[in-house]
């Protein structure tokens, strides 16, 4: 280390944007800049956080510097909290840091206690903290004796590992302060270390740091605060610059010494480069080894599920899979997953494995998945192969309404120490960045909201860095106000993936063999979930096993429909083994798929008509077809034309026929990519899997162009293809970039899709009640209510004496003398009525009989005035009295009575004669209260004369219009989509009663009507009829907007 004292070689107190509002740079940027400045070590010490650790180690490896990991932890001393900087010197030290952070974040004040700091000293180097640390602050307050005593205690707990931190941010008296700290250290016999606190990469980033600090503190830039930066000197500066500020060779030498001691390899790898995988221990009977128990259980299921030739094939496949599982040491992982699905089955919770795991016969035999893989020719190697470096995925869909019950059991079963959710790093997009930075700049909430709204679907998904692309929206909302320039400058300086906060992943549960503090701190999210500070990829890199336990609303809906069928008809349905019903396929062939799983979108409705699926294989293909990968690769139209016999099926090379015959010669699934890579280009499974990953993924595609020549050469060599053939295949694979389904996943979803169709055909009322209750899919309650008219299911009014608490329920009623099943909305569907309130109303009704009127309910129920008014406005008393009368009574009673008790002063005044509310009023109040109306009326029914005057043809009338006719029509906008893959085209759905039409808006029309298409609840369009029949498609040529009694929030994408 000769010469280290002459220049600083280590940065020991660096913050990234994972300090969450107190840093602006990514770990990668910091490493790049540190390497460019000539540093040899960089310690990431984010505030109470290690989220950037894996990225830090990856970047450091790439740029040839050593990464150190630690954290800045506030510690309460007396009544104040002071930050200390901890740097781990080993894996055990890293666990120590994680444990201390866990203890700190468990408190409301997010600070550790001094005894905790003193106890967490194993393999950790401690620095006394920067400007707001205990040394600088107590010295400033001249509390020297107290400080000396404290430093003595800390030094004793961290022998030879406690350093007084020298910093210099070119603030007033920083030189004097550094000299004073050094003198104090010499007096106490403690070492000093040069450790300037770095909060951003380059000096110009101080503006963003200042704005984020203001946002974090809840102040504006006009307000002074001690925590705000006073200059731009906390950037990552050169060693010479630091030495100029802190000219103490001993302190610089100590920085190198600390860094040398703190170097250790965090991401463990065995000799073959594979990650260590540490699955949790499964529960084993009779003390068996996990591999033996797995084999025993699977062989038993083999004998039960297979026979004859199928059994031989299944046994062969099982042996292959078992060998791979044993090679990975993953038997425990499969058994643990089976424990969870077993639990779901025992408790009647709908659950099924999905994703690539559905290709595994072991998963099928263990009951994790419901898809038999051999008969469907599903590729096991997509799930797992012996060359794999990453963990195989097992995703389990669980009925969303009971997922928490499963998570609670998992925590209980595996222990709180070894169970947590992985986190999602929530990164800034424009709306969120505008809210935070705009608030810091003093923009009032209304202005921020106006700007956010002005972004519309064109710019909402932009990263802040590219905010300049949304200049038109800034101009619309802010004009030429000076704040617009400041805001745009700040946004443009943000890194693309700037992290704002951590949130629980939608389903990723980590189960560890050892306490999770060995890997990451844990904390409770606002929803109560126990959360790691690692996302799923980071957790995997550290050898943790992640299970995706995903809440799926459609499973909850299927479960509720099954319960309703059981309640009304006494039939228990086995939804995994429903009989084949031609009426289901007929329904799909009509395109009447609204409400069905995965095939209900407008594009899927069109595809349904073209596909005319007749079996589960067709349905699996249909589910997979409308995805970004197949859409972008131009697969959809060739597939459909070839299936309809309109185009000959061809293959780019004869060797591809066995792979692509089932999909008419086009690439449809991820497995197709894998098989082509192996069988056409001669890759092994490991290479093929890496190749597939380069192609797949959301948004962050790698450029596969550099692999073109190698692919072509290998294909020529392996398959005897010509250069042109190989090049064409590569082009097709390149076109498949983007998210595509695994075939096994498509099969798993096809089973749910068929179940939803079967229930729709056989038990429409029960199924409607279920999709109203659980709200799966894309359509609003309002559109589903209109669709109920097509299904022939009456919707009954909300009724305080008949409605259930939280679920839509079926009732047998007579319509025109005929018995039918109808659906009645529950009380909790009203905005402002929580489930607990609805249950209280129901309990009172069940205990003491029906309510006589609003007065009776007011006396019996201890609710707030707002809750009573919400009930009344939603029509809960319509069967007892007129809605306006009831509302008056509630208002009058609120002034004279305590609800659920006796009158305070005098009797409530009598109700004056009030005009009835009327149908339009009821409809509007219903929508305001419940987002739909049980009335069999549509918003456009109140606008008929206006629409007639405008010459609008009702949507229902368009079904008989010839192709390419120009019409003027109108509809309530119920869906707005502008997918990034659609080259600027937008796809809206207009609704008029139970009839809907898709409206295609070309890019030029969109650009000239940005505000209209964003804001208008009802659109009037001059349009060309592109397709007719059940599905009407229109291509707009001009647009106008109309006001409507209601607006539907509807589905938004893009």
């Amino acid at each position, binding site marked *: 280390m000769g010469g280290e004292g002459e220049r600083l070689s280590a940065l020991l107190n660096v913050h990234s944007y994972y300090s969450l509002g107190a840093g602006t740079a990514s770990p990668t940027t910091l490493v790049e800049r540190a390497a460019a400045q000539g540093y040899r070590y960089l310690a990431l010490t984010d505030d109470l956080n290690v989220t950037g650790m894996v990225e830090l180690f990856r970047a450091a490896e790439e740029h040839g510097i050593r990464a150190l990991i630690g954290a800045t932890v506030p510690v309460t001393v007396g009544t104040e909290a002071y930050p200390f900087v901890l740097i781990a010197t080993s894996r055990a030290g890293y666990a120590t840091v994680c444990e201390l952070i866990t203890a700190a974040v468990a408190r409301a004040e997010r600070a550790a206690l001094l005894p905790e700091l003193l106890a967490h000293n194993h393999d950790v180097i401690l620095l006394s903290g920067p400007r707001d640390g205990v040394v600088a602050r107590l010295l400033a307050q001249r509390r020297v004796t107290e400080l000396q005593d404290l430093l003595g205690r800390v030094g004793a707990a961290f022998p030879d590992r406690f350093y007084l931190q020298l910093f210099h941010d*070119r*603030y*007033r*008296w*920083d*030189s*004097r302060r550094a000299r004073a700290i050094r003198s104090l250290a010499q007096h106490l016999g403690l070492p000093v270390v040069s450790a300037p606190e770095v909060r951003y990469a380059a000096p110009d980033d*101080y*503006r963003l740091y*200042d*704005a984020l600090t203001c946002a974090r503190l809840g102040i504006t*830039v006009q307000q002074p605060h001690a925590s705000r*930066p*006073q*200059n*731009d*000197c906390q950037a990552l500066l050169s060693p010479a610059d630091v030495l100029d500020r802190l000219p103490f060779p001993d302190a610089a030498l100590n920085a190198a010494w600390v860094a040398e001691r703190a170097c250790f390899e965090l991401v463990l790898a065995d000799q073959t480069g594979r990650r260590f995988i540490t699955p949790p221990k499964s529960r084993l009977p009779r003390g068996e080894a996990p591999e033996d128990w797995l084999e025993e259980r699977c062989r038993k299921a083999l004998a039960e599920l297979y026979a004859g030739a199928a059994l031989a094939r299944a046994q062969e496949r099982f042996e292959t899979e078992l060998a791979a599982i044993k090679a990975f040491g993953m038997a425990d992982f499969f058994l643990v997953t089976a424990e969870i699905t077993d639990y779901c089955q025992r408790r009647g919770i709908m659950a099924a494995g999905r994703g690539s795991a559905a290709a595994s016969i072991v998963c099928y035999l263990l009951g994790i998945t419901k898809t038999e893989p051999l008969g469907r020719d599903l590729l096991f190697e997509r799930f797992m192969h012996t060359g794999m470096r990453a963990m195989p995925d097992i995703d389990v869909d669980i009925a969303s309404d009971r997922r928490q019950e499963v998570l609670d059991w998992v925590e209980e079963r595996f222990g709180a120490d070894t169970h947590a959710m992985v986190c999602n790093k929530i990164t800034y997009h424009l709306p969120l960045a505008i809210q935070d930075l705009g608030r810091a*700049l003093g923009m009032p909430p209304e202005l921020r909201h106006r700007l956010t709204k002005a972004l519309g679907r064109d710019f909402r998904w932009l990263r802040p860095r590219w905010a300049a692309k949304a200049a038109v929206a800034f101009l619309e909302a802010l004009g030429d106000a*000076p*704040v617009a320039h*400041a805001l745009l400058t700040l946004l443009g300086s943000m890194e693309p993936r700037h992290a704002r906060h951590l949130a629980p992943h939608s389903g990723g549960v980590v189960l560890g063999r050892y306490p999770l503090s060995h890997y990451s701190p844990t904390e409770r999210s606002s929803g109560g979930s126990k959360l790691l500070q690692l996302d799923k990829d980071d957790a995997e890199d550290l050898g943790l096993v992640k299970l995706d336990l995903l809440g799926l609303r459609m499973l909850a809906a299927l479960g509720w429909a099954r319960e309703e069928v059981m309640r009304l008809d006494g039939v228990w349905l086995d939804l995994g083994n429903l009989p084949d019903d031609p009426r289901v396929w007929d329904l799909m062939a009509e395109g009447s798929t609204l409400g069905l799983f995965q095939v209900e979108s407008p594009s899927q409705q069109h595809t349904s008509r073209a596909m005319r699926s007749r079996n589960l294989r067709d349905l699996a293909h249909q589910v997979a077809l409308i995805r970004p990968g197949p859409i972008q690769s131009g697969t959809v139209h060739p597939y459909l034309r070839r299936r309809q016999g309109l185009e000959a099926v061809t293959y780019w090379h004869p060797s591809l026929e066995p792979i692509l015959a089932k999909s008419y010669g086009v690439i449809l699934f991820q497995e197709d990519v894998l098989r082509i890579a192996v069988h056409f280009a001669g890759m092994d499974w490991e290479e093929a899997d890496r190749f597939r990953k380069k192609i797949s993924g959301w948004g962050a595609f790698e450029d596969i162009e550099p692999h073109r020549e190698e692919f072509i050469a290998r294909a020529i060599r392996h398959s005897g293809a010509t250069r042109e053939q190989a090049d064409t295949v590569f082009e097709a694979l390149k076109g498949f970039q983007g998210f595509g389904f695994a075939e096994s996943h498509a099969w798993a979803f096809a089973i749910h899709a068929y179940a939803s169709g079967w229930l729709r055909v056989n038990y429409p009322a029960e199924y409607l009640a279920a999709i109203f209750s659980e709200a799966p899919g894309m359509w609003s309650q309002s559109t589903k209510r209109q669709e109920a008219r097509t299904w022939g299911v009456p919707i009954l009014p909300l009724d305080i004496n008949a409605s259930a608490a939280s679920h839509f329920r079926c009732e047998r009623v007579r319509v025109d003398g005929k018995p039918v099943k109808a659906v009645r909305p529950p009380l909790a569907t009203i905005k402002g009525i929580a489930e607990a309130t609805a249950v209280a109303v129901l309990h009172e009704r069940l205990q003491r009989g029906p309510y006589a009127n609003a007065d009776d309910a007011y006396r019996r129920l201890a609710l707030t005035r707002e809750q009573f008014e919400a009930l009344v406005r939603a029509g809960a008393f319509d069967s007892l009295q007129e809605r306006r009368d009831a509302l008056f009574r509630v208002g009058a009673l609120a002034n004279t009575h305590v609800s659920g008790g006796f009158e305070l002063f005098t009797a409530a005044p009598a109700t004056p004669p009030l005009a009835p509310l009327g149908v339009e009023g009821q409809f509007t109040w219903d929508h305001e209260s419940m987002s739909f109306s049980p009335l069999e009326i549509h918003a456009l029914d109140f606008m008929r004369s206006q629409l007639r005057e405008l010459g609008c043809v009702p949507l229902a009338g368009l079904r008989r219009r010839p192709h390419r006719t120009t019409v003027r029509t109108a509809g309530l906008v119920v869906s707005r989509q502008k997918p990034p893959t659609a080259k600027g085209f937008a796809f809206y759905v207009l609704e008029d009663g139970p009839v809907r039409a898709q409206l295609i808006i070309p890019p030029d029309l969109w650009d000239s009507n940005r505000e209209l298409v964003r804001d208008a609840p009802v659109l009037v369009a001059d349009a060309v009829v592109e397709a007719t029949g059940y599905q009407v498609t229109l291509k707009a040529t001009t647009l106008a907007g109309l006001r409507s009694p209601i607006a539907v929030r509807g589905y938004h994408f893009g």
Partner: protein
Amino acid sequence: MRLLMTQARVELSDDETPVSVEWDAPAGLPSPAPRGAPARGAPARRAPRRPLPPRRVVNVLDRWRHAGHWWEPREVRRHYYLLELDDGAQLELFREGDGWWVARVSD
């Protein structure tokens, strides 16, 4: 200590450190308006600023930087110096752009 905020002329050493400072004396205290002017609301009169002789810097006691108001059209970026002068006075001086300003003096 007096707050001045008056422009200064500074001679720098090779390492860009001030070695001598010259600035204008501040304007004098307001004095009554001349006879004959309206009694109420009359503008006060100030003595004009006058240049003081250059002062030699014997010690740079501290230096620091200040930046702010980046959200406004004119961002502030200043290099401050706390100087000990040859007569024992302490002078707080800053450079902003090409200009030098005396912020305050303690004598």
